[in-house]
Protein backbone atom coordinates (compact mmCIF):
# COMPACT_ATOMS: atom_id res chain seq x y z
CA UNK A 1 0.00 0.00 0.00
CA UNK A 2 1.44 3.32 -0.98
CA UNK A 3 1.98 5.58 2.00
CA UNK A 4 2.50 2.64 4.31
CA UNK A 5 5.46 2.37 6.60
CA UNK A 6 6.98 -0.28 4.38
CA UNK A 7 6.80 1.93 1.28
CA UNK A 8 8.24 4.79 3.17
CA UNK A 9 11.14 2.63 4.26
CA UNK A 10 11.65 1.39 0.67
CA UNK A 11 11.79 4.97 -0.53
CA UNK A 12 14.54 5.57 2.00
CA UNK A 13 16.64 2.82 0.48
CA UNK A 14 15.76 0.00 2.86
CA UNK A 15 15.71 -3.37 1.13
CA UNK A 16 13.03 -6.02 1.63
CA UNK A 17 15.65 -8.12 3.36
CA UNK A 18 16.55 -5.33 5.78
CA UNK A 19 12.87 -4.70 6.40
CA UNK A 20 12.29 -8.31 7.44
CA UNK A 21 15.43 -8.24 9.56
CA UNK A 22 14.01 -5.18 11.30
CA UNK A 23 10.71 -7.00 11.88
CA UNK A 24 12.53 -10.01 13.35
CA UNK A 25 14.75 -7.87 15.55
CA UNK A 26 11.76 -5.94 16.85
CA UNK A 27 9.86 -9.16 17.56
CA UNK A 28 12.90 -10.36 19.49
CA UNK A 29 13.09 -7.12 21.47
CA UNK A 30 9.41 -7.46 22.32
CA UNK A 31 10.02 -11.01 23.47
CA UNK A 32 7.69 -12.37 20.80
CA UNK A 33 8.06 -15.67 19.00
CA UNK A 34 9.41 -15.65 15.44
CA UNK A 35 5.98 -16.80 14.33
CA UNK A 36 4.79 -13.27 15.05
CA UNK A 37 7.20 -11.75 12.50
CA UNK A 38 4.78 -12.09 9.53
CA UNK A 39 2.09 -10.34 11.56
CA UNK A 40 4.43 -7.47 12.34
CA UNK A 41 5.58 -7.27 8.71
CA UNK A 42 1.98 -7.26 7.52
CA UNK A 43 1.04 -4.47 9.90
CA UNK A 44 3.97 -2.34 8.76
CA UNK A 45 3.18 -3.07 5.10
CA UNK A 46 -0.44 -2.02 5.42
CA UNK A 47 -0.58 0.67 8.06
CA UNK A 48 0.22 4.28 7.53
CA UNK A 49 2.83 5.92 9.62
CA UNK A 50 1.19 7.21 12.79
CA UNK A 51 1.39 10.92 13.46
CA UNK A 52 3.66 11.75 16.33
CA UNK A 53 3.87 14.95 18.30
CA UNK A 54 7.16 15.06 20.17
CA UNK A 55 7.36 17.63 22.95
CA UNK A 56 10.44 18.86 24.77
CA UNK A 57 10.32 20.12 28.33
CA UNK A 58 13.05 20.25 30.98
CA UNK A 59 15.70 18.02 29.45
CA UNK A 60 18.85 17.87 27.35
CA UNK A 61 17.43 16.43 24.10
CA UNK A 62 19.48 13.32 24.85
CA UNK A 63 16.59 11.04 23.97
CA UNK A 64 16.18 12.64 20.55
CA UNK A 65 19.94 12.36 20.10
CA UNK A 66 19.73 8.73 21.10
CA UNK A 67 17.14 8.13 18.40
CA UNK A 68 18.87 10.17 15.73
CA UNK A 69 22.44 9.07 16.19
CA UNK A 70 23.58 6.10 14.21
CA UNK A 71 27.19 5.52 13.36
CA UNK A 72 26.67 3.38 10.27
CA UNK A 73 23.84 3.42 7.77
CA UNK A 74 21.39 0.77 8.76
CA UNK A 75 17.81 0.30 9.77
CA UNK A 76 18.52 2.29 12.93
CA UNK A 77 18.95 5.37 10.81
CA UNK A 78 15.35 5.20 9.73
CA UNK A 79 13.86 4.30 13.08
CA UNK A 80 12.11 7.62 13.15
CA UNK A 81 10.72 6.91 9.69
CA UNK A 82 8.26 4.39 11.05
CA UNK A 83 6.43 7.39 12.47
CA UNK A 84 5.43 10.66 10.88
CA UNK A 85 6.96 13.31 13.05
CA UNK A 86 4.50 16.16 12.71
CA UNK A 87 6.02 18.20 15.46
CA UNK A 88 9.46 17.90 17.03
CA UNK A 89 10.92 21.10 18.35
CA UNK A 90 14.57 20.36 17.70
CA UNK A 91 14.49 18.71 14.28
CA UNK A 92 11.47 20.07 12.45
CA UNK A 93 11.91 22.43 9.50
CA UNK A 94 9.44 25.19 10.43
CA UNK A 95 10.18 27.70 13.12
CA UNK A 96 8.33 30.40 15.03
CA UNK A 97 4.63 30.76 14.32
CA UNK A 98 4.75 28.17 11.56
CA UNK A 99 6.02 25.60 14.03
CA UNK A 100 3.34 26.40 16.56
CA UNK A 101 0.75 26.23 13.79
CA UNK A 102 1.85 22.72 12.83
CA UNK A 103 1.42 21.63 16.46
CA UNK A 104 -1.99 23.25 16.60
CA UNK A 105 -3.03 21.69 13.29
CA UNK A 106 -1.94 18.23 14.33
CA UNK A 107 -3.69 18.17 17.66
CA UNK A 108 -6.91 19.61 16.25
CA UNK A 109 -7.12 17.88 12.85
CA UNK A 110 -5.80 14.53 14.00
CA UNK A 111 -7.49 14.54 17.37
CA UNK A 112 -7.48 11.06 18.88
CA UNK A 113 -5.23 9.75 16.13
CA UNK A 114 -1.77 10.92 17.08
CA UNK A 115 0.79 9.55 19.50
CA UNK A 116 2.17 12.08 21.97
CA UNK A 117 5.80 11.62 22.96
CA UNK A 118 7.16 13.61 25.88
CA UNK A 119 10.80 14.28 26.51
CA UNK A 120 11.68 16.07 29.74
CA UNK A 121 10.13 16.86 33.08
CA UNK A 122 7.43 19.44 33.68
CA UNK A 123 8.00 22.09 36.38
CA UNK A 124 5.01 22.70 38.64
CA UNK A 125 6.30 25.28 41.10
CA UNK A 126 4.74 28.76 40.96
CA UNK A 127 2.13 27.59 38.48
CA UNK A 128 4.71 26.02 36.18
CA UNK A 129 6.38 29.25 35.04
CA UNK A 130 9.86 27.72 34.80
CA UNK A 131 9.47 26.19 31.36
CA UNK A 132 7.96 28.07 28.42
CA UNK A 133 7.95 26.92 24.80
CA UNK A 134 6.37 29.14 22.16
CA UNK A 135 5.07 31.48 24.86
CA UNK A 136 3.12 28.71 26.56
CA UNK A 137 3.78 27.00 29.86
CA UNK A 138 4.92 23.42 29.39
CA UNK A 139 2.36 22.21 31.92
CA UNK A 140 -0.45 23.66 29.78
CA UNK A 141 0.96 22.35 26.50
CA UNK A 142 1.41 18.94 28.08
CA UNK A 143 -2.19 18.73 29.24
CA UNK A 144 -3.55 20.08 25.97
CA UNK A 145 -1.62 17.63 23.82
CA UNK A 146 -2.35 14.68 26.14
CA UNK A 147 -6.09 15.32 25.97
CA UNK A 148 -6.31 14.43 22.28
CA UNK A 149 -3.64 11.76 22.03
CA UNK A 150 -4.43 8.11 21.36
CA UNK A 151 -1.35 7.10 23.31
CA UNK A 152 1.02 8.95 25.62
CA UNK A 153 4.62 7.86 25.69
CA UNK A 154 7.19 9.41 28.04
CA UNK A 155 10.78 8.91 26.92
CA UNK A 156 13.81 9.28 29.14
CA UNK A 157 14.00 9.41 32.91
CA UNK A 158 13.05 13.11 33.09
CA UNK A 159 9.72 12.65 31.33
CA UNK A 160 9.02 9.38 33.15
CA UNK A 161 10.00 10.19 36.71
CA UNK A 162 11.40 13.73 36.79
CA UNK A 163 15.03 12.74 36.20
CA UNK A 164 17.74 15.36 36.57
CA UNK A 165 15.40 18.38 36.99
CA UNK A 166 13.59 16.57 39.83
CA UNK A 167 16.81 15.56 41.63
CA UNK A 168 17.19 17.06 45.08
CA UNK A 169 16.53 19.84 45.86
CA UNK A 170 14.24 19.94 42.80
CA UNK A 171 14.09 23.75 42.64
CA UNK A 172 11.24 23.88 40.12
CA UNK A 173 9.22 20.99 41.59
CA UNK A 174 9.64 19.12 38.35
CA UNK A 175 7.50 16.03 37.81
CA UNK A 176 7.19 13.21 35.35
CA UNK A 177 4.41 13.24 32.76
CA UNK A 178 2.33 10.61 34.55
CA UNK A 179 2.10 12.90 37.59
CA UNK A 180 0.92 15.75 35.37
CA UNK A 181 -1.72 14.13 33.16
CA UNK A 182 -2.58 10.96 35.08
CA UNK A 183 -4.05 7.96 33.29
CA UNK A 184 -1.99 5.54 31.26
CA UNK A 185 1.39 6.86 30.24
CA UNK A 186 3.83 4.40 28.79
CA UNK A 187 7.23 5.12 30.30
CA UNK A 188 10.44 4.35 28.44
CA UNK A 189 12.95 5.58 31.01
CA UNK A 190 16.70 5.60 30.70
CA UNK A 191 19.30 8.30 30.42
CA UNK A 192 18.78 8.41 27.55
CA UNK A 193 16.16 5.85 26.58
CA UNK A 194 17.17 3.08 24.27
CA UNK A 195 15.68 3.86 20.81
CA UNK A 196 15.14 0.18 20.08
CA UNK A 197 12.64 0.05 22.94
CA UNK A 198 10.83 3.07 21.53
CA UNK A 199 10.59 1.49 18.09
CA UNK A 200 9.42 -1.79 19.58
CA UNK A 201 6.66 -0.01 21.50
CA UNK A 202 5.44 1.77 18.36
CA UNK A 203 5.56 -1.45 16.32
CA UNK A 204 3.65 -3.27 19.04
CA UNK A 205 1.05 -0.53 19.02
CA UNK A 206 0.69 -0.71 15.23
CA UNK A 207 0.60 -4.49 15.09
CA UNK A 208 -1.74 -5.25 17.97
CA UNK A 209 -3.53 -1.92 18.40
CA UNK A 210 -2.56 -1.80 22.06
CA UNK A 211 0.34 -0.86 24.26
CA UNK A 212 2.52 -3.70 25.54
CA UNK A 213 2.13 -5.03 29.10
CA UNK A 214 3.45 -2.59 31.69
CA UNK A 215 4.90 -2.89 35.17
CA UNK A 216 3.69 -0.83 38.16
CA UNK A 217 5.90 2.06 37.02
CA UNK A 218 4.34 2.11 33.56
CA UNK A 219 7.42 0.59 31.92
CA UNK A 220 6.95 -2.07 29.23
CA UNK A 221 7.81 -5.45 30.72
CA UNK A 222 9.57 -6.66 27.58
CA UNK A 223 12.25 -4.03 28.17
CA UNK A 224 12.16 -3.52 31.95
CA UNK A 225 11.05 -6.89 33.26
CA UNK A 226 14.48 -8.25 34.06
CA UNK A 227 17.16 -7.23 36.49
CA UNK A 228 20.29 -6.01 34.72
CA UNK A 229 22.40 -7.98 37.20
CA UNK A 230 20.71 -11.25 36.23
CA UNK A 231 21.49 -10.80 32.53
CA UNK A 232 24.89 -9.19 32.90
CA UNK A 233 27.80 -10.67 31.01
CA UNK A 234 30.01 -9.99 34.06
CA UNK A 235 27.70 -11.97 36.35
CA UNK A 236 29.98 -15.06 36.46
CA UNK A 237 32.69 -12.86 37.97
CA UNK A 238 30.21 -11.77 40.63
CA UNK A 239 29.42 -15.36 41.59
CA UNK A 240 33.12 -16.19 41.52
CA UNK A 241 33.92 -13.33 43.89
CA UNK A 242 36.08 -11.56 41.31
CA UNK A 243 35.64 -7.83 41.68
CA UNK A 244 37.15 -4.63 40.37
CA UNK A 245 38.52 -2.89 43.50
CA UNK A 246 40.04 0.17 41.85
CA UNK A 247 39.78 1.83 38.47
CA UNK A 248 42.34 0.35 36.14
CA UNK A 249 43.40 -2.48 38.44
CA UNK A 250 44.02 -6.00 37.19
CA UNK A 251 40.38 -6.95 37.69
CA UNK A 252 39.17 -3.92 35.74
CA UNK A 253 41.43 -4.80 32.86
CA UNK A 254 40.20 -8.41 32.96
CA UNK A 255 36.57 -7.29 32.83
CA UNK A 256 35.58 -8.42 36.32
CA UNK A 257 32.40 -7.47 38.15
CA UNK A 258 31.88 -3.76 38.95
CA UNK A 259 29.81 -4.45 42.08
CA UNK A 260 32.42 -3.02 44.45
CA UNK A 261 32.70 0.11 42.28
CA UNK A 262 29.08 0.89 43.05
CA UNK A 263 27.37 -0.82 40.11
CA UNK A 264 23.59 -0.53 40.47
CA UNK A 265 22.90 -3.49 38.17
CA UNK A 266 21.54 -5.43 41.16
CA UNK A 267 18.72 -2.88 41.61
CA UNK A 268 18.12 -1.75 38.03
CA UNK A 269 15.72 -3.13 35.46
CA UNK A 270 16.36 -2.71 31.74
CA UNK A 271 17.32 -4.81 28.73
CA UNK A 272 20.72 -3.13 28.21
CA UNK A 273 22.71 -6.39 28.55
CA UNK A 274 20.68 -8.09 25.82
CA UNK A 275 19.95 -5.41 23.20
CA UNK A 276 22.79 -3.05 24.13
CA UNK A 277 23.26 0.37 22.58
CA UNK A 278 24.36 1.93 19.29
CA UNK A 279 23.18 -1.00 17.21
CA UNK A 280 24.29 -3.59 19.66
CA UNK A 281 27.84 -2.25 19.92
CA UNK A 282 28.19 -2.00 23.67
CA UNK A 283 26.59 -0.84 26.91
CA UNK A 284 27.98 0.86 30.03
CA UNK A 285 29.00 -2.24 31.98
CA UNK A 286 30.59 -3.81 28.91
CA UNK A 287 32.56 -0.58 28.53
CA UNK A 288 33.79 -0.90 32.13
CA UNK A 289 31.53 1.60 33.88
CA UNK A 290 29.11 0.68 36.68
CA UNK A 291 25.37 0.93 36.01
CA UNK A 292 23.75 4.04 37.53
CA UNK A 293 20.19 2.66 37.39
CA UNK A 294 19.14 5.35 34.91
CA UNK A 295 15.73 3.74 34.30
CA UNK A 296 14.86 3.78 38.01
CA UNK A 297 12.65 6.51 39.51
CA UNK A 298 14.72 9.32 41.09
CA UNK A 299 17.92 7.50 40.25
CA UNK A 300 20.00 10.66 40.80
CA UNK A 301 19.04 10.39 44.47
CA UNK A 302 18.01 6.74 44.79
CA UNK A 303 21.15 5.32 43.16
CA UNK A 304 23.48 7.86 44.71
CA UNK A 305 26.41 7.54 45.40
CA UNK A 306 27.07 6.11 41.94
CA UNK A 307 30.54 4.79 42.80
CA UNK A 308 29.75 3.26 46.17
CA UNK A 309 27.91 0.09 46.92
CA UNK A 310 26.23 1.40 50.06
CA UNK A 311 24.00 4.40 50.48
CA UNK A 312 25.02 6.86 53.17
CA UNK A 313 23.05 6.97 56.39
CA UNK A 314 21.02 10.19 56.16
CA UNK A 315 21.78 12.96 58.62
CA UNK A 316 25.26 11.71 59.48
CA UNK A 317 27.22 13.14 56.56
CA UNK A 318 27.57 11.89 53.02
CA UNK A 319 30.40 9.45 53.75
CA UNK A 320 28.65 7.86 56.72
CA UNK A 321 28.67 4.17 55.93
CA UNK A 322 26.16 2.12 57.94
CA UNK A 323 28.78 -0.50 58.78
CA UNK A 324 31.33 2.03 60.05
CA UNK A 325 28.72 3.71 62.24
CA UNK A 326 27.38 0.35 63.42
CA UNK A 327 30.83 -0.89 64.40
CA UNK A 328 31.50 2.34 66.30
CA UNK A 329 28.22 2.20 68.21
CA UNK A 330 28.69 -1.52 68.96
CA UNK A 331 32.17 -0.78 70.35
CA UNK A 332 30.77 2.04 72.46
CA UNK A 333 28.06 -0.31 73.76
CA UNK A 334 30.65 -2.93 74.69
CA UNK A 335 32.64 -0.25 76.55
CA UNK A 336 29.51 0.95 78.37
CA UNK A 337 28.64 -2.62 79.33
CA UNK A 338 32.16 -3.19 80.66
CA UNK A 339 31.94 0.02 82.70
CA UNK A 340 28.58 -1.07 84.09
CA UNK A 341 30.06 -4.41 85.10
CA UNK A 342 32.98 -2.71 86.83
CA UNK A 343 30.70 -0.42 88.82
CA UNK A 344 28.47 -3.36 89.78
CA UNK A 345 31.47 -5.39 90.95
CA UNK A 346 32.78 -2.48 93.03
CA UNK A 347 29.38 -1.97 94.63
CA UNK A 348 29.03 -5.66 95.45
CA UNK A 349 32.47 -5.76 97.01
CA UNK A 350 31.50 -2.80 99.16
CA UNK A 351 28.24 -4.48 100.19
CA UNK A 352 29.99 -7.73 101.00
CA UNK A 353 32.58 -6.07 103.19
CA UNK A 354 29.81 -4.06 104.83
CA UNK A 355 27.74 -7.17 105.65
CA UNK A 356 30.91 -8.86 106.92
CA UNK A 357 31.53 -5.86 109.18
CA UNK A 358 27.97 -6.06 110.40
CA UNK A 359 28.43 -9.75 111.03
CA UNK A 360 31.37 -9.02 113.34
CA UNK A 361 29.42 -6.70 115.51
Amino acid at each position, binding site marked *: MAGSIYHHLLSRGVTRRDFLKFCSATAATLGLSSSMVPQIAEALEKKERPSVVWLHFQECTGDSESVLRASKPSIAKVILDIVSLDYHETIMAPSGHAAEKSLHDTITKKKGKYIAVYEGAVPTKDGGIYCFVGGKKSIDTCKEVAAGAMANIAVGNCACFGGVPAAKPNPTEAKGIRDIIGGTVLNIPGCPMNPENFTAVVVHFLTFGSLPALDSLGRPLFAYGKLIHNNCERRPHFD*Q*GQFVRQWGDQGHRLGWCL*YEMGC*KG*PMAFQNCPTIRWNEGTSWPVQAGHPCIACA*TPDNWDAAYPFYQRMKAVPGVGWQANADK*IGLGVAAATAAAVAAHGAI*RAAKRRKECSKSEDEGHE
Partner: protein
Amino acid sequence: MATTTHREYIWELPVRITHWVNALSILTLSVTGFYIGAPFLGIPAGDDVLPMAMMRFIHFVAGYIFTASVLFRVYWWFVGNQYARLNQFIPTTWGRVQNTVQCALFYGFMEDEIPHSPGHTGMAGLSYIVVFMLFLFEVASGFALLHMANGGGIIYAIGGGWMLDILSAGTIRMLHHVFMWCIWIFVIIHVYISWHNDIIERNGLISSIFSGYKFFGDHH
Protein backbone atom coordinates in the same frame (compact mmCIF):
# COMPACT_ATOMS: atom_id res chain seq x y z
CA MET B 1 16.92 -17.28 108.01
CA ALA B 2 17.14 -20.59 106.25
CA THR B 3 17.07 -20.57 102.51
CA THR B 4 16.22 -23.52 100.31
CA THR B 5 15.91 -23.42 96.58
CA HIS B 6 13.42 -24.95 94.24
CA ARG B 7 13.51 -25.16 90.50
CA GLU B 8 10.75 -24.06 88.21
CA TYR B 9 10.13 -24.85 84.52
CA ILE B 10 10.05 -21.46 82.79
CA TRP B 11 11.17 -21.74 79.17
CA GLU B 12 9.31 -24.32 77.12
CA LEU B 13 11.09 -26.29 74.44
CA PRO B 14 9.83 -24.14 71.50
CA VAL B 15 11.04 -21.02 73.30
CA ARG B 16 14.51 -22.49 73.77
CA ILE B 17 14.72 -23.88 70.25
CA THR B 18 13.64 -20.63 68.59
CA HIS B 19 16.07 -18.75 70.82
CA TRP B 20 19.02 -20.80 69.61
CA VAL B 21 17.85 -21.01 66.00
CA ASN B 22 17.55 -17.22 66.04
CA ALA B 23 20.98 -16.82 67.60
CA LEU B 24 22.71 -19.14 65.13
CA SER B 25 20.90 -17.77 62.10
CA ILE B 26 21.69 -14.18 63.13
CA LEU B 27 25.37 -15.14 63.33
CA THR B 28 25.25 -16.91 59.96
CA LEU B 29 23.26 -14.14 58.32
CA SER B 30 25.63 -11.48 59.62
CA VAL B 31 28.82 -13.19 58.45
CA THR B 32 27.44 -14.03 55.01
CA GLY B 33 25.74 -10.63 54.87
CA PHE B 34 29.04 -8.85 55.46
CA TYR B 35 30.54 -10.73 52.55
CA ILE B 36 27.60 -9.96 50.29
CA GLY B 37 27.73 -6.28 51.26
CA ALA B 38 31.49 -5.92 50.85
CA PRO B 39 33.16 -9.04 49.44
CA PHE B 40 36.32 -9.25 51.51
CA LEU B 41 37.86 -12.39 50.01
CA GLY B 42 40.24 -11.78 47.12
CA ILE B 43 39.81 -14.54 44.57
CA PRO B 44 42.58 -14.92 41.99
CA ALA B 45 41.81 -15.12 38.28
CA GLY B 46 41.12 -18.58 36.97
CA ASP B 47 40.00 -19.97 40.31
CA ASP B 48 36.69 -21.76 39.97
CA VAL B 49 35.34 -21.43 43.51
CA LEU B 50 32.08 -19.53 43.80
CA PRO B 51 32.27 -17.66 47.12
CA MET B 52 29.64 -15.04 46.31
CA ALA B 53 27.17 -17.61 44.99
CA MET B 54 27.82 -19.76 48.08
CA MET B 55 27.50 -16.87 50.55
CA ARG B 56 24.27 -15.76 48.92
CA PHE B 57 22.89 -19.29 48.98
CA ILE B 58 23.73 -19.72 52.68
CA HIS B 59 22.36 -16.24 53.42
CA PHE B 60 19.05 -17.02 51.73
CA VAL B 61 18.64 -20.45 53.36
CA ALA B 62 19.50 -18.99 56.78
CA GLY B 63 17.06 -16.19 56.03
CA TYR B 64 14.24 -18.66 55.45
CA ILE B 65 15.13 -20.58 58.63
CA PHE B 66 15.26 -17.33 60.60
CA THR B 67 11.90 -16.24 59.18
CA ALA B 68 10.29 -19.56 60.14
CA SER B 69 11.77 -19.36 63.62
CA VAL B 70 10.66 -15.76 64.19
CA LEU B 71 7.15 -16.48 62.93
CA PHE B 72 6.90 -19.59 65.08
CA ARG B 73 7.97 -17.61 68.15
CA VAL B 74 5.33 -14.98 67.31
CA TYR B 75 2.76 -17.82 67.16
CA TRP B 76 4.01 -18.98 70.58
CA TRP B 77 3.17 -15.52 71.97
CA PHE B 78 -0.43 -16.71 71.85
CA VAL B 79 -0.27 -20.39 72.77
CA GLY B 80 2.80 -20.70 75.01
CA ASN B 81 2.90 -20.79 78.79
CA GLN B 82 2.49 -17.68 80.93
CA TYR B 83 6.16 -16.72 80.51
CA ALA B 84 6.05 -16.91 76.70
CA ARG B 85 2.97 -14.80 76.12
CA LEU B 86 2.78 -11.42 74.44
CA ASN B 87 1.83 -9.71 77.73
CA GLN B 88 5.34 -10.55 78.99
CA PHE B 89 6.74 -8.29 76.29
CA ILE B 90 4.40 -5.35 76.44
CA PRO B 91 3.73 -4.10 79.97
CA THR B 92 -0.08 -4.00 80.13
CA THR B 93 -0.61 -4.27 83.91
CA TRP B 94 0.45 -1.81 86.58
CA GLY B 95 2.59 -4.53 88.14
CA ARG B 96 4.54 -5.00 84.88
CA VAL B 97 5.02 -1.26 84.49
CA GLN B 98 6.37 -1.04 88.06
CA ASN B 99 8.61 -4.02 87.41
CA THR B 100 9.97 -2.33 84.28
CA VAL B 101 10.66 0.96 86.06
CA GLN B 102 12.31 -0.80 89.00
CA CYS B 103 14.52 -2.76 86.61
CA ALA B 104 15.62 0.45 84.93
CA LEU B 105 16.41 1.99 88.33
CA PHE B 106 18.30 -1.14 89.37
CA TYR B 107 20.44 -1.14 86.24
CA GLY B 108 21.03 2.57 86.75
CA PHE B 109 22.36 1.86 90.30
CA MET B 110 19.48 3.81 91.80
CA GLU B 111 17.77 0.79 93.35
CA ASP B 112 19.49 -2.00 95.25
CA GLU B 113 17.11 -4.88 94.58
CA ILE B 114 16.04 -6.25 91.21
CA PRO B 115 12.29 -7.03 91.21
CA HIS B 116 11.47 -10.71 91.37
CA SER B 117 10.41 -11.92 87.93
CA PRO B 118 10.15 -15.67 87.32
CA GLY B 119 10.07 -15.14 83.53
CA HIS B 120 11.31 -12.05 81.76
CA THR B 121 11.81 -8.89 83.73
CA GLY B 122 9.67 -6.02 82.49
CA MET B 123 12.66 -4.41 80.86
CA ALA B 124 13.85 -7.63 79.20
CA GLY B 125 10.38 -8.20 77.78
CA LEU B 126 10.28 -4.69 76.41
CA SER B 127 13.69 -5.05 74.78
CA TYR B 128 12.60 -8.34 73.17
CA ILE B 129 9.52 -6.80 71.59
CA VAL B 130 11.76 -4.09 70.13
CA VAL B 131 14.19 -6.69 68.87
CA PHE B 132 11.34 -8.69 67.35
CA MET B 133 10.33 -5.58 65.44
CA LEU B 134 13.93 -5.41 64.19
CA PHE B 135 13.71 -9.11 63.22
CA LEU B 136 10.51 -8.53 61.30
CA PHE B 137 12.03 -5.53 59.53
CA GLU B 138 15.11 -7.55 58.61
CA VAL B 139 12.88 -10.32 57.25
CA ALA B 140 10.75 -7.88 55.25
CA SER B 141 13.69 -5.90 53.86
CA GLY B 142 15.48 -9.16 53.05
CA PHE B 143 12.48 -10.44 51.12
CA ALA B 144 12.18 -7.08 49.34
CA LEU B 145 15.77 -7.33 48.09
CA LEU B 146 15.30 -10.99 47.18
CA HIS B 147 12.01 -10.16 45.48
CA MET B 148 13.82 -7.68 43.28
CA ALA B 149 16.63 -10.07 42.36
CA ASN B 150 14.33 -12.99 41.63
CA GLY B 151 11.67 -11.04 39.80
CA GLY B 152 8.66 -11.68 41.96
CA GLY B 153 6.63 -14.41 43.52
CA ILE B 154 3.86 -14.22 46.08
CA ILE B 155 6.03 -14.99 49.13
CA TYR B 156 8.41 -12.18 48.22
CA ALA B 157 5.55 -9.80 47.51
CA ILE B 158 3.88 -10.46 50.87
CA GLY B 159 7.16 -10.83 52.70
CA GLY B 160 8.59 -7.48 51.72
CA GLY B 161 8.05 -6.62 48.07
CA TRP B 162 5.58 -3.97 49.17
CA MET B 163 8.50 -2.10 50.71
CA LEU B 164 9.92 -1.38 47.25
CA ASP B 165 6.92 0.83 46.57
CA ILE B 166 7.80 2.98 49.57
CA LEU B 167 11.59 3.03 49.66
CA SER B 168 14.30 2.77 47.03
CA ALA B 169 16.24 -0.48 46.91
CA GLY B 170 19.41 1.34 48.01
CA THR B 171 17.68 2.74 51.10
CA ILE B 172 16.24 -0.68 51.96
CA ARG B 173 19.71 -2.21 51.69
CA MET B 174 21.19 0.53 53.88
CA LEU B 175 18.47 0.00 56.52
CA HIS B 176 19.03 -3.77 56.31
CA HIS B 177 22.59 -3.04 57.53
CA VAL B 178 21.54 -0.45 60.12
CA PHE B 179 19.02 -2.79 61.76
CA MET B 180 21.51 -5.64 61.71
CA TRP B 181 23.82 -3.44 63.78
CA CYS B 182 20.92 -2.63 66.12
CA ILE B 183 20.45 -6.38 66.62
CA TRP B 184 24.14 -6.84 67.43
CA ILE B 185 24.05 -3.98 69.91
CA PHE B 186 21.09 -5.77 71.50
CA VAL B 187 23.12 -9.00 71.55
CA ILE B 188 25.97 -7.32 73.44
CA ILE B 189 23.60 -5.94 76.08
CA HIS B 190 21.54 -9.15 76.20
CA VAL B 191 24.54 -11.39 76.85
CA TYR B 192 25.94 -9.00 79.42
CA ILE B 193 22.66 -8.62 81.33
CA SER B 194 22.06 -12.39 81.33
CA TRP B 195 25.48 -12.96 82.82
CA HIS B 196 25.07 -10.03 85.23
CA ASN B 197 21.68 -11.24 86.50
CA ASP B 198 22.84 -14.83 86.68
CA ILE B 199 25.43 -13.66 89.21
CA ILE B 200 23.26 -11.16 91.05
CA GLU B 201 20.20 -13.35 91.42
CA ARG B 202 21.95 -16.75 91.45
CA ASN B 203 18.96 -18.18 89.65
CA GLY B 204 20.71 -20.15 86.94
CA LEU B 205 19.52 -17.76 84.27
CA ILE B 206 22.13 -18.72 81.69
CA SER B 207 21.64 -22.45 82.14
CA SER B 208 17.87 -21.91 81.94
CA ILE B 209 17.98 -21.18 78.24
CA PHE B 210 19.45 -24.67 77.75
CA SER B 211 17.42 -26.58 80.33
CA GLY B 212 14.28 -24.48 80.73
CA TYR B 213 14.60 -24.41 84.56
CA LYS B 214 15.32 -21.46 86.79
CA PHE B 215 16.16 -21.69 90.48
CA PHE B 216 14.47 -19.62 93.15
CA GLY B 217 15.25 -19.22 96.81
CA ASP B 218 12.44 -19.87 99.32
CA HIS B 219 12.68 -17.60 102.32
CA HIS B 220 11.56 -19.13 105.60
